């Protein structure tokens, strides 16, 4: 059996600059494994250690996602091997297209019964790829997954739902998107990174893949920032802590918060 970790090599929002008009500039941002994805690596490793499955990392994107740094970053997080599609025709691809390419890769690997992914990517934050991938594959898709463990012939799953936690068991192939705190992910150590360099990497060409193409185009028209809310813009001078605390209490009382 094989477990796939679908992850994104994404620009780090910490390096992004937000312009005065609210536009976000990622041009100076360095890329890394999208911050919400390490949980998926960790869950996959834990399940595989229990079942003896193989863990394969899959990532797709433009040519810049295939560097030695990017390979080591992924392979040092418990993968057995890595499959990459790095093609500039995927630059700026939307979530549907990325999911379609991922689906083609998963089909090509065969023998996969579980795909794990993060909740969303840090840069786009739409949270669509995992569920679209499930649809493309015709598999079950579940998001908000907070726990996965192997059972006889399937998996036991917990989900965060508005009313609390739901437990369920699953047989048959599925795509699961994990919550950011589903599990504590390990930071790769020196041996993990050295080991990463010895693991196999397969680079697939987009042309070799059987990617379904939906005849839909989506064009962004505009985007606006959320309303600023009813801010009072009161700044309290904190040089005298006692006076500042009293003033804060006074201001909160006046605003009928206390």
């Amino acid at each position, binding site marked *: 059996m094989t477990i796939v970790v679908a992850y994104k090599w994404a620009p780090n929002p910490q390096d992004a600059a937000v312009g005065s008009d609210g536009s976000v500039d990622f041009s100076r941002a360095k890329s890394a494994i999208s911050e919400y994805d390490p949980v998926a690596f960790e869950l996959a490793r834990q399940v595989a250690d229990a079942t003896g499955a193989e863990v394969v990392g899959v990532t797709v994107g433009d040519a810049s996602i295939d560097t030695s*740094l990017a390979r080591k970053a992924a392979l040092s997080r418990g993968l057995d091997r890595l499959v990459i599609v790095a093609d500039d025709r995927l630059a700026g691809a939307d979530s549907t297209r990325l999911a379609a390419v991922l689906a083609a890769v998963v089909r090509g690997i065969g023998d996969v019964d579980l795909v794990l992914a993060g909740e969303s990517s840090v840069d786009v934050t739409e949270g669509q790829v995992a569920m679209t991938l499930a649809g493309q594959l015709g598999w079950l898709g579940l998001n908000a997954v907070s726990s996965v463990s192997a059972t006889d012939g399937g998996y036991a799953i917990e989900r965060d739902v508005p009313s609390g936690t739901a437990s369920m068991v699953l047989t048959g192939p599925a795509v699961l998107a994990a919550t950011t705190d589903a599990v504590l992910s390990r930071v790769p150590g020196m041996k993990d990174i050295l080991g990463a360099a010895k693991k196999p990497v397969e680079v697939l060409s987009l042309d070799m893949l059987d990617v379904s193409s939906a005849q839909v185009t989506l064009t962004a028209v505009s985007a606006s920032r959320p309303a600023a809310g009813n801010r009072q813009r009161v700044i309290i001078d904190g040089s005298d802590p006692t006076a500042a605390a009293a003033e804060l209490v006074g201001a909160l009382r006046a605003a009928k918060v206390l």
Partner: protein
Amino acid sequence: MTSDAAGPDFDVVVVGAGIAGSVTAYRLAERGLSVVLIERGDVPGSKNLSGGVLYGRVLETVFPHYLNEAPVERRITRHVTTFLNADSAVSLDYSADGLAEPGNAVTVLRAKFDPWLAGKAEEAGAFLMPGVRVDSLLTGPGLDGATTVVGVRAGDDELRARVVVAADGVNSFLASSVGLRQKQPTNHLAVGVKAVIRLPRADIESRFGVSGDRGAAHAIVGDCTLGIGGGGFIYTNTESLSLGVVLRLDDLLRSGHTAIEVFEHFTQHPGLQQYLHGGELIEYGSHLVAEGGYPMVGEVAMNGMLVAGESAGLAINSGLTVRGMDLAIGSAIAASDAVVEAVAAGDTSKAGLAGYRRRLDESFVMQDMRTSARAPKFLERNRMYGPYGELIADVLQNAFSLDGTPREHLLNVARHALRRSPLTLRQLISDGWAGVRAL
């Protein structure tokens, strides 16, 4: 790869993929040694501040065509030194196109330059290991009974090597952990606050009087540091400026100001707005600079370990220029040659690695450290940072403000100005002499 007693994991562990570490790793890998280059930043350069002026001739001895290959910003053909007062400024402008060939000094941004350099080491065969912070050295007793470094530890993992090269920068805790470096007195350290601001290319070229790939380096002393020992700088990159202040730590502490306050005073100084206005801040940070000069360089080798770059105290602050990157490269050349020699001879003890210090002493690195040995003392003369600029401005004010009264001979003007200034003629001569000897 195992780290049992059987043998080392690598010939050499280099800690820190800054300038010194990457050049060392490159030269060792080129010569066929197995090398791991460990860097705590997720990407080399991500922990290193903005950059500055690289006096790059020495890099040509390692990468003859680096100017065409490396991400360098501009070739410096114009050096401007400004004495800045609250409401006046006196500048000395030295420009020569000859400075561009073959590239005496260039500006670099470390966020781009360090990954390039580390990439070179990786291409040559070094194993680049980013995202790992070395926590401690592995040590054991050497044949001579003295402590021997046998590897490094990070988290739960250990890596063993014949030689560890500590290139972990000015705060080198690796060197101090084995007693190679003592805690530095505050007058051996300066605090640098640096920023990069984005500015359109056309604005840079018109404001600084440069074009094409040519650039300017401005050194500024006086009111811009609120009179605190140190200075400010503005360097032109392709589409941004690197700027900041370097402040003597002891003087800063004495002044009661914070480095940030001084930095803000600098960036808002009316005398500098012609260069800075409209710039958009894109990077900002603060860092220590070693400026103890020659006395700060102590032991650079021990059994199983060398210390290179600024972790060995190799940096020079002449008051007008801060140099560290070129010395880091020079020390990396010396360190890698010495390691190759020691590994080949099968003796990586302190004696086996003695070739490092000898090469350092013979190279420009120690010669320049010695030449500038007096610079730190010179910089401790506080009048450099206030009264001088005012004195010169006063003289020029008299010379240039023609108000109808008969002109005095400039020497007389200077004499009167000096009388009004808190400086004495003796201080002037003494500082002048100290300056000539220091620079």
